[in-house]
């Protein structure tokens, strides 16, 4: 290993609240060498961000380092005077934050935001600093960067702003870059580009990088070594491949096991860690993971384990009852052996017998309820039909506010969903998937086309008729905090849909609520409590219960687990699957997370810029993608496996989503497509069948269509 640039030794950080003290980081030690990337992973509240901020000495109010040492190239930072520390910040250590939308000053041109840091640390003229700012902008991939120095942050997209933030961080060529969730707010395609850029710059500038993230997929691909944090402690540290293949801490194992993989067998329950992380104002004695650990013994609850070495150099863990390697995971058998352009999912990782025991051998679930429910008479009509749905928002401008253009949010989308089925919708943000979800439940009005439930077009219904249809169409929202009224008790939140619809008596409503609460795993006392008294995962359970109070047929779940931590996410996913069977629900699941959509869905639709570009069964879409966009999406989704991730060095989808006001002519994906030709700009590709029920709209598909329907298809599919 090279000379350590950063050495952190027994760092402890506390945050003083008005009545208590949060022991955010306790006794954390690690080092990073030149040109090395150290991943710091853990769930929210585990202290990973506070560790990063401790190094910068930029702790939030009330935060202070209580003990330990931080050495940057041999220089002790903890004891430095604030004035001296200021000339270290931005100069020798730089930081990139998560939220590129709020991290740039909205009222200052970006050129000045970069150059002010250069001027702070280098004695250069204003003009020279701006020239250097332009240089760092070109470094992060802005062509003609000097022309953009006078632009303001809102004139850039999220991905571009993240690049600008990286340009700021790198403008003084720091020795250490702390990247705190640098890509969490971005789409997978942009995420891959930004992470690639960071990697590239790290090598060019010989920096050390501390990559703070909750995403095991991101560390798998980018980190040389990984620290796993839990409740303020490092519980395991190892070289990346070693950690993923031979972890010893049950938490590391459980964390990995709770992530749905693209290769996941959908019939299996996901592993989930029971409970929630401890409150760090009063951390439990002994091992902090013990209350959630299936292997915990009395010793774990009383005596705290310290990091101990293994035979592998640099692999340490803190556990009394270590596991060996990942938990057994049932990988879906590959039904078709067709060629696929996307990197194939890995075979089952070697499973330690102990690991399988620790995970609590996952119980197979019953076959999907579709088959049970299909027995009901349906007159051969699919439960939900979306036919040529169009939704466009006018863009008004000028003195008279005339409509000058339209944002084509949903353009001519058609698909159908059978009873008991789960239909997944994936795509980048801004592709129109959320608008489509709202169209389905009648929260948005169609401009053209129809949405039919049991053969009845809901867009033609009067407000009164629609109200009764809403019983069957419910929505589960992404944000568990914002979607529940903070001033209503949970009981009132759950009763409201029934009251509005005039369903049942007070007593029967109460009975429904009590049943639902127990079904989603909340105590009956929850009725009297307010949403803020619950954790994120519990609130999402309340959201699911609310969607189910009217016993709907269709639930549209918009990013149901995106706001949740990994270990909580799998609890909610399992719950959604279980309730689908119990209530014979039909789901439309909207998510940008391919693994989540794949785990829940029977069939999948891929959306791009308002268009459905590919639709088919899960296996068709994931194993035999036809559209270049689908293939690119699958290739860029980070998977928690270092072997797969490190092999994906090239960026699969270049560029950014074009404006939905002026979508590209012909095929809308052509501006970012590796296979685009002139035809793609001239003609919009028709939907063609590639397999039974597997449709895609591409002139130059990755597979031969089933039966070439028209002339273009014959010439095109060469």
């Amino acid at each position: 290993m090279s000379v350590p640039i950063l050495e952190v030794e027994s760092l402890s950080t506390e945050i003083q609240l008005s009545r208590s003290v949060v022991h955010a980081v306790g006794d954390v030690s690690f080092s990073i060498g030149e040109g090395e990337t150290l991943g710091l992973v853990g769930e929210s509240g585990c202290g990973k961000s506070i560790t990063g901020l401790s190094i910068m000495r930029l702790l939030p109010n009330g935060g202070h380092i209580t003990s330990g040492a931080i050495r940057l190239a041999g220089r002790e930072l903890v004891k430095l005077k604030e004035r001296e520390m200021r000339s270290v910040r931005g100069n020798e250590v730089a930081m990139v934050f998560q939220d590129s939308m709020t991290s740039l000053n909205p009222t200052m041109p970006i050129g000045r935001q970069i150059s002010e840091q250069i001027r702070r640390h280098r004695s250069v003229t204003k003009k020279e600093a701006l020239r250097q700012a332009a240089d760092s902008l070109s470094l992060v991939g802005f062509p003609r960067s000097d022309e953009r120095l006078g632009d303001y942050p809102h004139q850039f997209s999220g991905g571009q702003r993240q690049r600008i933030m990286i340009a700021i961080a790198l403008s003084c060529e720091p020795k250490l870059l702390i990247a705190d969730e640098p890509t969490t707010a971005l789409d997978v395609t942009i995420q891959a580009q930004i992470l690639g850029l960071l990697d590239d710059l790290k090598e060019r500038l010989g920096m050390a990088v501390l990559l703070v993230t909750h995403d095991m997929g991101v560390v798998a691909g980018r980190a040389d070594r990984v620290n796993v944090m839990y409740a303020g402690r490092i519980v395991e540290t190892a070289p990346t491949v070693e950690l993923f293949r031979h972890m010893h801490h049950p938490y590391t194992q459980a964390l990995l096991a709770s992530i749905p993989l693209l290769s996941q067998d959908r019939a299996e329950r996901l592993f989930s860690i029971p409970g929630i992380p401890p409150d760090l104002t009063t951390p439990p004695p002994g091992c902090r993971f013990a209350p959630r650990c299936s292997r915990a013994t009395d010793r774990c609850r009383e005596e705290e384990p310290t990091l101990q070495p293994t035979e592998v150099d640099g692999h340490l863990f803190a556990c009394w009852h270590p596991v060996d390697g990942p938990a057994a995971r049932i990988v879906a058998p590959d039904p078709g052996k067709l060629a696929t352009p996307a990197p194939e999912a890995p075979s089952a990782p070697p499973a330690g017998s102990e690991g399988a025991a620790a995970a609590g051998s996952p119980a197979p679930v019953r076959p999907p309820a579709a088959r049970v429910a299909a027995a009901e008479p349906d007159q051969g009509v699919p439960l939900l039909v979306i036919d040529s749905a169009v939704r466009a928002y006018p863009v008004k401008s000028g003195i008279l506010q005339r409509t000058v253009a339209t944002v084509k949010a949903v353009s001519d989308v058609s698909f159908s969903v059978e009873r008991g089925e789960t239909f997944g919708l994936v795509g980048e943000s801004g592709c129109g998937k959320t608008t489509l979800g709202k169209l389905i439940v009648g929260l948005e009005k169609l401009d053209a086309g129809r949405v039919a439930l049991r053969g009845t077009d809901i867009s033609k219904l009067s407000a009164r008729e629609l109200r009764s249809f809403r019983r069957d169409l419910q929505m589960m929202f992404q944000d568990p905090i914002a979607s529940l009224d903070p001033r209503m008790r949970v009981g009132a939140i759950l009763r409201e849909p029934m009251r509005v619809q005039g369903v049942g008596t007070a007593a029967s409503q109460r009975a429904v609520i009590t049943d639902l609460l127990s079904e989603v795993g909340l105590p009956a006392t929850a009725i009297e409590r307010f949403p803020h008294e619950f954790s994120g995962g519990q609130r999402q359970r309340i959201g699911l219960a609310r969607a189910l109070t009217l016993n709907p047929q269709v639930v549209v779940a918009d990013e149901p687990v995106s706001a949740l931590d990994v270990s909580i996410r799998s609890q909610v996913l399992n719950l959604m699957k279980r309730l689908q069977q119990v209530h014979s629900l039909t789901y439309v699941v909207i998510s940008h997370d391919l693994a989540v959509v794949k785990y829940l869905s029977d069939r999948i639709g891929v959306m791009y810029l308002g268009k459905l570009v590919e639709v088919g069964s899960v296996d068709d879409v994931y194993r035999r993608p036809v559209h270049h966009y689908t293939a690119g999406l699958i290739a860029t989704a980070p998977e928690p496996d270092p072997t797969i991730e490190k092999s994906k060095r090239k960026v699969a989808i270049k560029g950014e989503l074009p404006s939905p006001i002026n979508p590209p002519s012909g095929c809308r994906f052509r501006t970012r497509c590796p296979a685009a030709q002139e035809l793609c700009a001239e003609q919009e590709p028709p939907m063609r069948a590639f397999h039974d029920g597997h449709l895609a709209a591409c002139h130059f598909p990755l597979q031969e269509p089933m039966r070439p329907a028209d002339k273009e298809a014959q010439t095109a599919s060469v």
Partner: protein
Amino acid sequence: MTAYLIRRVFISLIVILGISLLTFVMTHWIAPNPGRAVLGLKASPAAVAAWNRAHGYDNPVWAQYWGYLWKLLHGNLGYSYKLNQSVASLIAENAPHSLWLSGSSVVLSILIAIPLGIFQAVKRNSVADQTATAVAFTAYSMPQNFLGILLIGWLAITWHIFPAEASQSEKIIPYILAWRANFLPIATLTITAVAGYSRYQRSAALDSLAQEYIRLARAKGLTERAVLFRHLTRNAILPMVTLIGLSIPVLLGGNLIVEDLFNSHGLGLLFFNSLSNEDFPTVIALTLIAGIATVVGNFVADVALTVADPRIRIS
């Protein structure tokens, strides 16, 4: 942006037209028979009818409204029969005094409240912050006339530092120069305004301080001074622009309570006196002016915000 401004002016004009309609309706409602109101109860019906005919009050209502508008456009705001003077000249005599009192206190309070609010936000929960908060709440919750009386009691009656009455000069220049005489009314207005503005500025600055760009500015190694001046202040005063724009009507309409309390010439006192004398033409003209001032204030605030905030400016 030009299109936005033109549209904004257009909308403002429509609103002003609406206000004129309202005041016209109010006039009719208060004095359905203006001749009778002017000539008094003892006048003969024939004289009343003749007066009404002479002044166009026998025309249909829409024609009367049109005539009213026409007069307004020519600066004819009506005639005060009580004071035997045109309302326009009354306003011209009194407006400068009000403008000076309210204007100087608004400027003073901005100069005090913005730094104070930002300071309180930066030193949140410190002794200084909590003291300022307590004082601000006390001042804010105090009726303005009570505060004025307190100031008169201490500074004028007990210690004789300032006179209890504002300058009585009818001319504006001597009025402005008599700063000692006008100290107490301006102080009363300023203290109340600072109490409100500083609270608002404090919370706006707290919002800005919580933003990531402040953290990024610190992560750049900037001094705390640079963070506050370059990054915090501009963003934190954006919400104040709207608030200050909304206080323009007070500026133009004069301050009723303070002008009455300190017996200062001005639109507020004029309004107060007209109201007590049942001088309705003056009252209604002042109402119209206050309405127009509100619209203008809003417009100015919007334009100022457009200039100050690049997000609005460019898109």
